[in-house]
């Protein structure tokens, strides 16, 4: 695959930036469970997180394929883009379905980083992937909506100014189609925290800044509704395809990091008087991971090009996420195995990346739901759930 000079230039620029944030930086953050604010600031200042925002709103107006390359390079450099990737894609719903006034009000700030839109409130304790059964409600009261309920796995809520919130505005039994009755709001968390919104961090096995968010009679202005009331589910679907493609690209970057790391180590580490990479038992798993990663990479670029050309990339985005997350997880496992005992030592970063890479066969959508999608919507098999 030959890339355009523009894309190659983006890769070099991201690599140069990431070189400023070596393993020690991430290990320290991992140890203290701190948010990598310096890294996110650097990405923001360099304009990378505004890649998808059109130039008229202060962004760089790049295609998704180019944005995917940014995320890939971040991961391939050993950094963790999960701290920032949402700034890139959550605004998609605002861009596509927000009013001109809303876009003027928020997009320039998101583009220059003065406004952080990093939180997306969808999952709830009782509705994981079954989004339509969510229970958080927003009830119209004059010029306001009153929000009650709870969200979970809302990542980066403590490090975000705005939250895109999906809530039910019409009871499920009163809607004509089951996909209706949910609405999307852009909630200003700077005002909400302490006056109806509470955020509780959830400690996880990696440094991921995820939280639970509680709504207790939170009042938000009616003007924070995006698009039409009741159409929220439809609005977020398109954003989810972009999210899946970008995260798939991150997985490709992770796989490349693991493969590079393992190859370097296998060449240099000697056991029985020869490099361990001379053993088929060591080199074949690395080679297999490489082939698996390259195949997944093709699907990621294919999905991005379908998205960029205006098509519906539902199947491709799902397949890209599944294949790429499986490739990165296979590479992670292989890398630990190649490193032997050192794979568990913090100083090699392998164990940290291993923990971080594990997330993506689960989030933002689990492999089972992807297989269900392909079986039902692509192959015409009966719905299984």
């Amino acid at each position: 695959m030959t890339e355009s000079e523009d894309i190659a230039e983006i890769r070099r620029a991201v690599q140069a930036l990431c070189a400023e944030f070596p393993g020690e930086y991430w290990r320290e953050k991992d140890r203290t469970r701190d948010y990598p604010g310096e890294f996110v600031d650097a990405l923001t200042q360099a304009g990378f997180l505004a890649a998808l925002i059109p130039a008229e709103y202060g962004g760089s107006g790049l295609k998704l394929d180019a944005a995917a390359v940014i995320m890939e390079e971040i991961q391939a450099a050993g950094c963790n883009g999960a701290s920032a990737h949402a700034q890139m894609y959550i605004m998609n719903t605002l861009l596509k379905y927000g009013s001109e006034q809303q876009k003027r009000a928020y997009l320039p700030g998101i583009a220059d980083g003065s406004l952080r839109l990093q939180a997306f409130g969808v999952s709830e304790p009782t509705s994981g992937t079954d989004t339509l059964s969510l229970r958080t409600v927003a009830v119209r009261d004059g010029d306001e909506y009153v929000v009650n309920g709870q969200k979970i796995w809302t990542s980066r809520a403590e490090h975000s100014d705005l939250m895109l919130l999906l809530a039910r505005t019409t009871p499920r039994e009163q809607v004509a189609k089951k996909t209706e009755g949910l609405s999307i709001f852009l909630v200003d968390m700077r005002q909400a925290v302490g006056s109806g919104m509470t955020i509780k961090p959830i400690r996880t096995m990696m440094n991921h800044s995820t939280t639970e968010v509680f709504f207790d009679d939170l009042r938000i202005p009616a003007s924070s509704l995006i698009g039409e009331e009741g159409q929220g589910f439809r609005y977020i679907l398109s954003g989810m395809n972009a999210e899946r493609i970008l995260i798939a690209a991150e997985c490709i970057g992770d796989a490349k990091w693991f493969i590079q790391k393992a190859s370097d180590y296998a060449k240099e580490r000697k056991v029985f008087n020869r490099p361990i990479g001379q053993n088929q038992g060591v080199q074949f798993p690395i080679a297999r991971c490489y082939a698996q990663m390259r195949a997944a990479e093709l699907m990621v670029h294919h999905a991005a090009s379908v998205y960029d050309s205006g098509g519906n990339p539902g199947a491709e985005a799902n397949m890209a996420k599944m294949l790429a997350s499986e490739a990165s997880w296979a590479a992670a496992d292989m890398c630990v195995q190649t490193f032997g005992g050192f794979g568990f030592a913090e100083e090699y970063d392998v164990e940290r990346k291993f923990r971080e890479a594990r997330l993506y066969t689960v989030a933002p959508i689990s492999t089972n739901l992807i297989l269900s999608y392909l079986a039902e919507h692509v192959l015409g098999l009966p719905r299984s759930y």
Partner: protein
Amino acid sequence: MSILYDEGQQAIATESRRVLDARVAKDRLLKLLEQVGEHDATFWDTAVEQGWTALAVPEEHGGLGLGLVELGLVAQASGAATAGAPFLTPGYGVTHALVAAGNADLAAKYLPQIASGDVRGAVAFAEGTDILPATPATKFADGKLTGSKPAVPGAIKAELALVWASGANGPVLAIAELAGAERKPVSSFDNSRLYADLTFAGTPATILAEGAAALDLAREVLARMAVVTAHEQVGGSEALLHIARDYAVMRKAFGQPIGAFQSVKHRIAEMYGLVEIARANCIHAAAVAGTDEFLVAAADARLTATEAYDTCARDCVQIHGGIGVTWEQGLHLHMRRARSLAIEQGNLLFWEDLLVEKLTGEAA
């Protein structure tokens, strides 16, 4: 129980292997693949002569009164030889059903003939891919069976069948002589299994169990047959393991035995692991027959033995390269048998579901 076989059991294992090594010929088995309706008569005559048909039949009915452990050892030897007659396992299923149902007249009528090899049993439970359908389409009423059972192993030649059908009060297990049933031979990739579609049109039959008792007994019979089959699968897997090992030591490439390459030798080591896990599960399952643990143990044996045989069949061909796919080399005898045995007595999904049900207490 001890996981060690006693002296008598070891003798059965050694003797059955010795006899089959001497009498089963690959050329004969290859010819059987190309004709519908023939089994390996030499093997079956040997089974009768050696008393394998009588192994699990109670002594009062002319049998040896032994059980699943001993039958499993014979099945293991048969599996290693890809022996071409499908009667030992279903014969055991029919035997167990007759004994467990407690119908003295039927037991006295059929068991001596099963022991002597004069009557060969078939077990007709499955309809389509469902090995034990909740409401079978085959009906039982007024002492007669009506309906069809597709691709029943051994059914081209068996004289007696144990049939899973729907009766007036839920499912029934019935025993029927096949003289009155229509058999349509199925041409398959493993023809010596003697698959036939059985059609009953008012075929006389006798109920052994009905309702919940029928389901319990059908599962027990299926599990017992699955354990015999799992032993057969282990025998086949182990034979393939040895074939692969011997070839890897003998065959040279790039100036060294291919077994010196890690990608080959590690693969053989993995086959060994699968075979031994399956063997352990088989021994355990055979040892706990008749206890509450049995269904779970049978499922374990069945699942691991199926994986072992499938994997060994695939990897053994891979290790042989081009020679592995030739007709004369005959590895395809195992490949075919691995697939036919993977389906007989219920596929992996059935056993996985059963395992889930038993472990969680909920129907999957």
